[in-house]
C-alpha cells in the first residue's frame, strides 16, 4: 500500500500492464526519456525499454492512427496526447476508425487502445492547455470516455480501460494530478467501468459531477451541510456510456438534481444527464434540473480562468435555488 498522487497512480497502472501484458506499448511525445511532460510515464522506459515505451515524432494524428493500426493487429497501445488542446487532429482517426472498426468488420477486427490525455484548466497554463471538450468524444458511438477523480480511481479505471477490448479515451484532470495522495495498493485490481461512484450519500439533493470539479462540489457540500442540507454526490467517472440507473435511483430518493462540470454549457455532458433524468425520472423530480458549468466562451487566458469555471459559491447557489423550487 503506498500513498500516491493521481499521476503516480497512472504510472503505477501503466507499469502493471506493461509488466503483465507483453502486448501493451506506451507511445507519445516526450513519454520515454523525459517520462512525459507531467511525469506520467516516469521511469517506464528505463524499466521496460525503448521498444515498449516510445518517444514518437511530433504528430498527433499519426499517434492516433498508428495506435489504431497496432491495436487492430494484436497489440494494446496506450498512446498519450500531451494536452487535450492538441487532441483534435486525432478526432479523424478516433471517429472514423477507432469507434467503427469492430462494427464495420462485424467483429473481425477491433481496436483495444487507450488514448490518454491531461485535460481541464486551473493550472495557470498558456493558451490551449486547459481544454475540457470531453463531450466531443462522448458523442461518438463505439468509444468510451473515462475521467478519474482520485488516485484510487485513476489506478483502477486505467487498468480496466487497458484491459477493455474497445477504445477508451482516458482524460486525466491535470489540476488534481498532485493535489492529494491516497493509499492505493498496487495489486492489479481494476475498478468497474460504466458505473458511477457515489462519493457522498445524502437525502435532499443529488449532485452529479466528475473530474476536478468533484473537489469544488465536495467543498460546496460541506458548506451546505452547515445549513443541514444533505447532498448526495455522484462521480460519473465513465462519461460515456453513462450509468444512469445509479443517478435515477438517487434522484428517486432526493427528487432534485444539479450537475456540475467545468466544460462549456451547451451540449456538455451535463445536457445528456439532464435529458436522461427528464425522460426516465420526471415523476421523481420536485424541481427543475440545474447545471453549473463553464460559460459558452473560449476558456480565457489564466488571469481570468477561475472566473470562467464553476466555483464553490456558484454550486452552493444552484443547490439552494433548486431546494427553494
Amino acid at each position, binding site marked *: 500500500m503506498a500513498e500516491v498522487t493521481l499521476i503516480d497512480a497512472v504510472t503505477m497502472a501503466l507499469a502493471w500492464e506493461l509488466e503483465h501484458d507483453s502486448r501493451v506499448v506506451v507511445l507519445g*511525445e*516526450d513519454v*520515454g*526519456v*523525459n*517520462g512525459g*511532460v507531467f511525469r506520467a510515464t516516469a521511469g517506464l522506459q528505463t524499466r521496460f525499454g525503448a521498444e515498449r515505451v516510445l*518517444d*514518437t*515524432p*511530433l*504528430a*498527433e*494524428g*499519426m499517434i492516433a492512427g498508428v495506435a489504431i493500426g497496432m491495436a487492430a493487429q494484436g497489440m494494446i497501445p496506450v498512446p498519450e496526447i500531451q494536452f487535450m*488542446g*492538441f487532441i*483534435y*487532429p486525432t478526432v479523424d482517426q478516433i471517429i472514423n476508425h477507432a469507434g467503427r472498426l469492430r462494427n464495420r468488420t462485424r467483429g473481425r477486427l477491433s481496436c483495444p487502445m487507450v488514448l490518454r490525455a491531461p485535460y481541464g484548466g*486551473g*493550472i*495557470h*497554463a*498558456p*493558451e*490551449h*492547455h486547459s481544454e475540457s471538450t470531453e463531450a466531443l468524444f462522448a458523442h461518438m458511438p463505439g468509444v468510451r470516455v473515462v475521467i478519474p477523480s482520485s488516485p484510487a480511481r485513476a489506478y483502477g479505471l486505467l487498468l480496466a480501460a487497458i484491459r477493455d477490448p474497445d477504445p477508451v479515451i482516458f482524460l486525466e484532470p491535470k*489540476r488534481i494530478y498532485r*493535489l492529494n495522495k491516497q493509499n492505493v495498493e498496487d495489486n492489479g485490481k481494476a475498478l468497474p467501468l460504466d458505473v458511477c461512484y457515489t462519493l457522498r450519500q445524502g437525502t435532499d439533493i443529488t449532485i452529479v459531477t466528475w473530474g*476536478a470539479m468533484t*473537489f469544488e462540489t465536495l467543498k460546496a457540500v460541506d458548506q451546505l451541510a452547515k445549513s443541514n442540507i444533505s447532498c448526495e454526490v455522484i462521480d460519473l467517472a465513465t462519461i460515456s456510456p453513462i450509468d444512469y440507473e445509479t443517478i435515477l435511483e438517487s434522484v428517486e430518493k432526493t427528487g432534485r438534481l444539479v450537475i456540475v462540470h467545468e466544460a462549456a*454549457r451547451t451540449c456538455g455532458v451535463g445536457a445528456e444527464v439532464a435529458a436522461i433524468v427528464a425522460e426516465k425520472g420526471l415523476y421523481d423530480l420536485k424541481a427543475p434540473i440545474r447545471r453549473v458549468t463553464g*460559460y*459558452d*466562451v*473560449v476558456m*480565457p*487566458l*489564466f*488571469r*481570468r*480562468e*477561475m*472566473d*470562467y469555471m464553476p*466555483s464553490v*459559491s*456558484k454550486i452552493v447557489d444552484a443547490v439552494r435555488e433548486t431546494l427553494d423550487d
Partner: protein
Amino acid sequence: METIADFEIQYSQFLDPAGKPSADIPDLARDADKLVDMYRHMVETRVFDTKAINLQRTGKLGTYASCLGHEATHVGLAAAMQEDDVLAPSYREYGAMLYRGVSMAEILMYWGGDERGSDFAGPRNDFPFCVPIATQCLHSAGAAMAFQMRGEARCAVSVNGDGGTSEGAFYEAMNIAGARKLPVVFMVVNNKWAISVPIELQTATKTLAQKAVAAGIPGIQVDGNDVIAVRHWVERALARARNGDGATLVEAVTYRLSDHTTADDASRYRKKGEVETAWKLEPLIRIRQYLTDIGVWDEKKEQALLAEAATKVDNAVQSYLNTPKQPIEAMFDYMYKELPEFLEEQRDHAIQYGDNDGGHHG
C-alpha cells in the same frame, strides 16, 4: 533503369562562429547600417528574454518559452520581410515579432495571461502566437493564397521548429504551396530539440530542408546562428515568391540554449557537454566580432546598447505590471462580432459572481 528525379540540398554560412567571413559573403555584409540594425535588435531580444525568465522566476509572469540562441534566425528572417508581408509565428519568435513592431509589453501580456497581448498595435495583419504545432504553416499558405488571388505583391512567412516538421499540417501546407506556386516562405528553425525529443528521433532525413522535395519546392539549409546568411537567403526566397515563382523552405540550423519553457528542465534529457559546445556557436558573438573587425562597433557602443536595451525592457515591464486585469465580461465580448442573445444571461451571471481569480486552485 534510369533516374528520373534527383535532389540536392545546399548549405550556406557566411560568418563562421568566430565571426570570420567566408569568401562568397554577399553585399549585405558591406551594408554596415543594416548589420548594426540587426545586431541591435538581437541584443535587445536577448535582454528582453532574460528579463522575461526572471519575471517568471519571481512569480510575475506565467510559463514562458525562451528564445535564447535563436536571435539570428528570428531577427534575420524579419529583417528580410517587407512591412506589408505577414508573419505566422509559433510561440518563440520574439526577435522577429519585436523587429516587426510587436511591443515587449504585448509579449509579456500574452505570457501573463491576458488576451490583449495578441491585439498587436503594430503589425495589424500578423498572426498571433500559435501553440498547436505547425497549424500556422497552413495559415501562412492561406494568407499567401489571398495575396495571390488579389494580385498583391505581398508574401507570407511561417516559422516552425524541427518537431513541427513531423506534423501533417506542415506537409499539407508545403504541398499546396507547391501545387499553387503560393508566395510563401516556410522557415524551419531546427534547434535540435522538440522538448525532450532529439532531431535523430524526429525524422530519418539528413536535413529538414529536403522535406521541401516532397512538395516540389526548393529547400536550403543555412547556419541559423549567422544572421547574414539567414537574412540573405530569406530575402532571396521572398524575391522568388514576389516574382511569382512560388514557395521556398529555408531551414535555419541553430540550438535551443534554454529549456523548452520555464517549467521544463532540459538537464533531465540533455548532456551537459552538448549545451556547452552549443554556447560556443551562439549568434551574438560572431556578428559582434565581425562588426568590430570591420570597424563599426566597439565596447563603448556595446555598453550604450546594453543600457538602452535595459531601459526599454524595464519600461515595458512596468507597463505590463501596471496594466490592470480585463473586466470579467471581456471573456464574452469577443466571441462573436455581435453577442448572441443566449450569451447575455451567462455574461450577467459571470459579472454577478465577480472576481474569483486568486491565482490557480490549490
